[in-house]
């Protein structure tokens, strides 16, 4: 009996993420969904600028690396050329909710048949822990050393709720990977987001609440707890659009 098998959709390249970072779990879930749907050989993945910039080394399929925030536009170009392929973007919160806000909005508005995996860790990981549009009010980062000040920079953006308003968005869900139960739910949502694309229904996105122990200044365990205690109350989980 086979208990565990490596997913084909991941390469053997060791992941470059910090210990305890949940980017790795999310990679695994995306890869499993692609393998289960049997579409690896017609999938094109778009890597972001952020800690997942090397995703083209990790996902074992055709990959493109996009400029910061532009993955949805690159995905649009690819999908329009190969409408039968499966195209996904994998983006952080700085990438998607800040510099790439226009690109993701309009890809969703066009009902672009792509799947977006949106990794929300409430911070800019790769550049060393600066404030993101998703940083919680009061959260200390290297560019909000006194805690995010609502007066100065407003409240964090809830991208899933915002994008769910757009008619072109067919499936939008927010999930978390802070414990096993939630990991399993996240897997289902990610799979659903790919199925939505394959069925040609429109734009699909899964926002995954993720940890950044390194820049949060927490242990991996503390980070998982912080997702539950601080992030989920502001970023409620669940399907925001679609079945």
């Amino acid at each position, binding site marked *: 009996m086979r208990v565990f098998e490596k997913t084909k959709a991941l390469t053997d390249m060791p992941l470059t993420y910090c210990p305890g970072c949940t980017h790795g779990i999310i990679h695994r879930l995306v890869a499993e969904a692609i393998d289960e749907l049997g579409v690896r050989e017609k999938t*094109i993945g778009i890597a972001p600028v952020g800690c997942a910039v*090397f995703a083209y080394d990790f996902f074992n399929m055709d990959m493109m690396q*996009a400029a910061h925030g532009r993955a949805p*536009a690159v995905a649009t*170009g690819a999908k*329009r050329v*190969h409408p039968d392929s499966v195209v996904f973007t994998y983006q952080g919160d700085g990438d998607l909710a800040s510099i790439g806000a*226009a690109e993701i909005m309009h890809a969703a508005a*066009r009902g672009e048949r792509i799947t977006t995996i949106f990794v929300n860790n409430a911070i800019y990981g790769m550049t060393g822990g600066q404030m993101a549009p998703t940083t919680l009010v009061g959260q200390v980062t290297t560019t909000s050393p006194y805690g995010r000040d609502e007066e100065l920079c407003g409240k964090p953006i809830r991208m899933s709720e915002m994008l769910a308003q757009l008619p072109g968005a067919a499936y939008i869900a927010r999930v978390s990977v802070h414990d096993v139960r939630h990991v399993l739910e996240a897997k289902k949502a990610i799979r659903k987001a790919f199925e939505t694309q394959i069925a040609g229904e429109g734009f699909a996105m899964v926002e995954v609440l993720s940890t950044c122990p390194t820049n949060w200044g927490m242990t991996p365990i503390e980070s998982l707890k912080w997702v539950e205690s601080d992030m989920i109350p502001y970023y409620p989980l669940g399907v925001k659009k679609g079945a």
Partner: protein
Amino acid sequence: MAKMLMKGNEAIAEAAVRAGCRYFFGYPITPQNQIPEYMSKRMPQVGGTFLQAESEVSAINMVYGAAGSGARVMTSSSGPGISLKQEGISYIVGAELPCVIVNIMRGGPGLGSIQPAQSDYYQATRGGGHGDYRIPVLAPSSVPEAVELTIKAFDIADEYRTPVIVLGDGMIGQMMEPVDLPDELTRQLPAKPWAAGGRGAKPDADGADEGRRAIINSLYIDPQVLENHNIKLQGKYSRIAAEQLLFGSEMVEDADIVIVAYGTVARIVRSAIRLARAEGIKAGMIRPITLWPFPEAPIADAAKTARVFLTVEMSAGQMVDDVRLALNGARPSHFYGRTGGMVPAVRDVLDQIRRLAGAGQSPAIKEVLV
């Protein structure tokens, strides 16, 4: 094939279609709007895709995605939009993707004007975005030439895996001339085995497909690997410089005064040198058709016989730097330019030529910038 009367912008768009371009991503900006408008009509007729992007930033990144997927793809814009595209262009260069970018230049800086200008010469010929690179730049001076060069642009792009810029000024975009459009390309477009996706499943039976997958990328985190990549790019630029130089030479052999001009300005200069010749002044013209690679050697050659050089541009003086580099001090280099959408008049250029002719051995005219 019967000649058709076409506006430059539309002729460029139709030429792209005939060159096999099936994807166009753009954003409205004057004076190039007829290109996206024409493409929005034409692409669906030929089974292609036209998409109006939410910005030029997005348009050029759609180009990146489509080019990375193996398509013949084009975008077009003008000054402010071309500035926004620079980030994407740099990535396209880094990832070695072929595409065609049309810039129908208008007056700048800032929002500037919508009138014709040649003020984006530096931006086009010096790379334009971040990083160490060059882009072949083709500058038509008539609508038929715009057709020819647009088709050529796609071929150069594919051959060298590079973006190619078609640099026209507002006049080229808006003027109507009879053109002879070639039939739709029948020849096979080059295979792109490096491109991503959708070309059928790749062999996977043995699990040994690693290395066969396409990776479209411009990130090389190891300095030595990046330097190697840059050396490769520079090698490509040397090949392009050796193989793709285009220029026109008119009445240069016996010329005393050689004028260097490109695009629409070259037409004005052509009229001026004819009038000068009628007055007994031996004037000639070198017309760069590729702005990069720049016709350095032809200018240096002309300097062996000509006495003085005059560069005329619709800018404050950009290409003149390349003329000076080519001359390397061998002959005096003068400049006459108009900016902001003002177009030099034939008589103004003729006046410049007369002054240089009258000035004998050491022409004393000042660089004139009105």
